[in-house]
């Protein structure tokens, strides 16, 4: 369990990180420059916060009020940044055993061998970092961090410099190892897909502040803030007026129905682009698509590989962004300026509050 409530001002930029985590896989997600790396550096002890507390697995690492600031070497933290950090003057074996020797831990050969095999670096022990590929370097760095049984493993986009296949396999490996060793892992990323796959809990950071945190399903499926919804890929976010009977009206005058229960201050409608469905006139629509229908014309078409991203403007001036699988796009024979009818799936509509009008 981790509890972090800290603030720091750097070059007139204010950073405020306040969240807690219960599970062993926590993702810190946010755009580049939002302060994610600074957060990890403060947990590691590279920088001290201006105020607040850091508690990791019941150990107080930092407390401004309590005048506690454990030095880096006493924090027992595994830190894996984006850049390669293997000591170039040591062999792979010396790198891996560095922490164990420094901490005078008993070197259990069988455990080391098992981990080396698991990480696929058993044959590289006598090599120097210079002889390894980027993926191998990060595997060795991971082994080095894990062997000292850290209190927490901090991963700061460690695989972002690697190609996608290696990145995915390493990410899956870290998930397995984090679960097997039950080590609390804080994984920083700006990749939404990676955040979804890795995190049991998500901490959302934007502009130097934690804007929301919670379980993966809570943050991904029912964000509380419109800002969170935007970061979570909802894209279609409009201010609305709440009406009776689970209805809302957009500024353009469209009335949509939703199924969930939301607090009164929730005045933004959010829907993911993949939850807006095209209605075919030649076949009867499903019941759940008969509501929330709007007409409009397609103004932009962007092919994204597996799917097609479309922008549609309704007659009343509402702009919708829609994602559609490539095969469906071909089947519907959609073109620019084509008049279409779409339906917003009512069960997929989420109402959020504006973060700044709490």
């Amino acid at each position, binding site marked *: 369990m981790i509890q972090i409530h800290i603030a720091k001002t750097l070059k007139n930029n204010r950073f405020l990180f306040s969240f807690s985590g219960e599970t062993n896989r926590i993702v810190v997600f946010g755009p580049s420059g939002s302060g994610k790396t600074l957060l990890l550096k403060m947990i590691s002890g590279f920088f001290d916060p201006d105020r607040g507390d850091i508690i990791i697995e019941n150990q107080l690492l930092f407390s401004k009020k309590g005048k506690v600031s454990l030095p*880096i*070497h006493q*924090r027992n933290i595994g830190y894996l940044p984006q850049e390669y950090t*293997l000591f*170039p*003057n040591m062999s792979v074996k010396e790198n891996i055993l560095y*922490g164990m020797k420094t901490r005078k831990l008993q070197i259990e050969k069988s455990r080391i061998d098992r981990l080396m095999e698991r990480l696929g670096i058993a044959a590289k022990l006598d090599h120097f*970092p*210079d002889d390894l590929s980027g993926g191998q370097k990060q595997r060795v760095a991971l082994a080095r961090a894990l062997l000292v049984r850290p209190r927490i493993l901090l991963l700061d986009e460690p695989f972002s410099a690697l190609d996608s296949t290696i990145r995915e396999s390493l990410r899956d490996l870290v998930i397995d190892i984090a679960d097997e060793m039950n080590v609390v892992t804080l994984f920083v990323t700006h990749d939404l897909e990676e955040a979804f796959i890795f995190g049991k809990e998500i901490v959302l950071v934007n502009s130097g502040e934690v804007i929301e945190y919670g379980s993966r399903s809570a943050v991904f499926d029912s964000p509380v803030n419109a800002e969170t919804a935007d970061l979570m890929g909802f894209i279609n976010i409009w201010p609305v007026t709440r009406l009776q009977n689970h209805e809302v009206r957009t500024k353009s005058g469209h009335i949509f129905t939703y199924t969930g229960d939301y607090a009164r201050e929730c005045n933004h409608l959010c829907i993911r682009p993949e939850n807006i469905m095209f209605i075919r006139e030649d076949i009867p629509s499903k019941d759940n698509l008969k509501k929330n229908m709007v007409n409009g014309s397609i103004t932009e078409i962007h092919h994204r590989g597996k799917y097609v991203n479309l922008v549609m403007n309704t007659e009343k001036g509402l702009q919708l962004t829609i994602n559609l699988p490539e095969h469906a796009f071909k089947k519907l024979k959609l073109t620019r300026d084509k008049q279409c009818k779409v339906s917003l799936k009512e069960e997929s509509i989420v109402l959020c509050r504006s973060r700044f009008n709490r």
Partner: protein
Amino acid sequence: MKLSSVSRIIVVILAFFFGAILISGLFYTGFRSINDLFQDSGFLQAVVFSLQTSLVATAFAFILGVPSGFFLARNNTLVSRFMDVLFDIPIVIPPLIVGVLLVTFFNIPIIRNFYSFIFTAPGAIAAQFFIAVPFTIKSSKNAFELVPPIYERIAMTLGAKPVKSFFDTTYKIAFPGILSGLILTWLRCIGEFGATLMVGGGIPGKTENIPINVYLQMISGDHEKGVTAGILTIGLALACILFINVLFLKNRNRISHG
């Protein structure tokens, strides 16, 4: 004509002149001259004096110059940039002028009352130190700049105390660069003439080093002995430069791709 062809011609001409100047000395020397030189007690005393003073000055350069290089590498403030320029001064002004300034400094009553450096071995050491320490500072600074501080931090996360993390990572990685700087510093001390003469006085048997000995041999008309001593010094310098190059070639990749 291509730029590479022009540069090739220029470098060949330059190498020819360098080689010609170095080789020309060989016409005035031989095994007999070397043998005669080592029978000369004045020269041997100069060799011993040169070795003693240069090694002590290099030791001081190591103790004071390496931490200074580290500071300059890790700090980029107005003050540190000013200090960087300040430490370059002995390289760009004539050593004789440095000698004059040192003599003036050592003649300040508070310094003179503390110790009389003028015409003594410690004075010669001080002169060599001030002339040569910039090489240690520069090389150390460059070597430390190549090592990102993250290595030290990672070592600390693995349980190493700050001093241990520095010596296990940054220092060891930067060491070839530091060592090459120290060798250059030592060579500069060995070859130091102007400032050493000005402060040490070049007293035969007391404060006379190899370059002063060569100078005195030349003005007394013993051209052959002067050239032979010079050739030996060049041989030493070439061997050291070769050693530095081998050292760097071996470590360059390892440092840059860690």
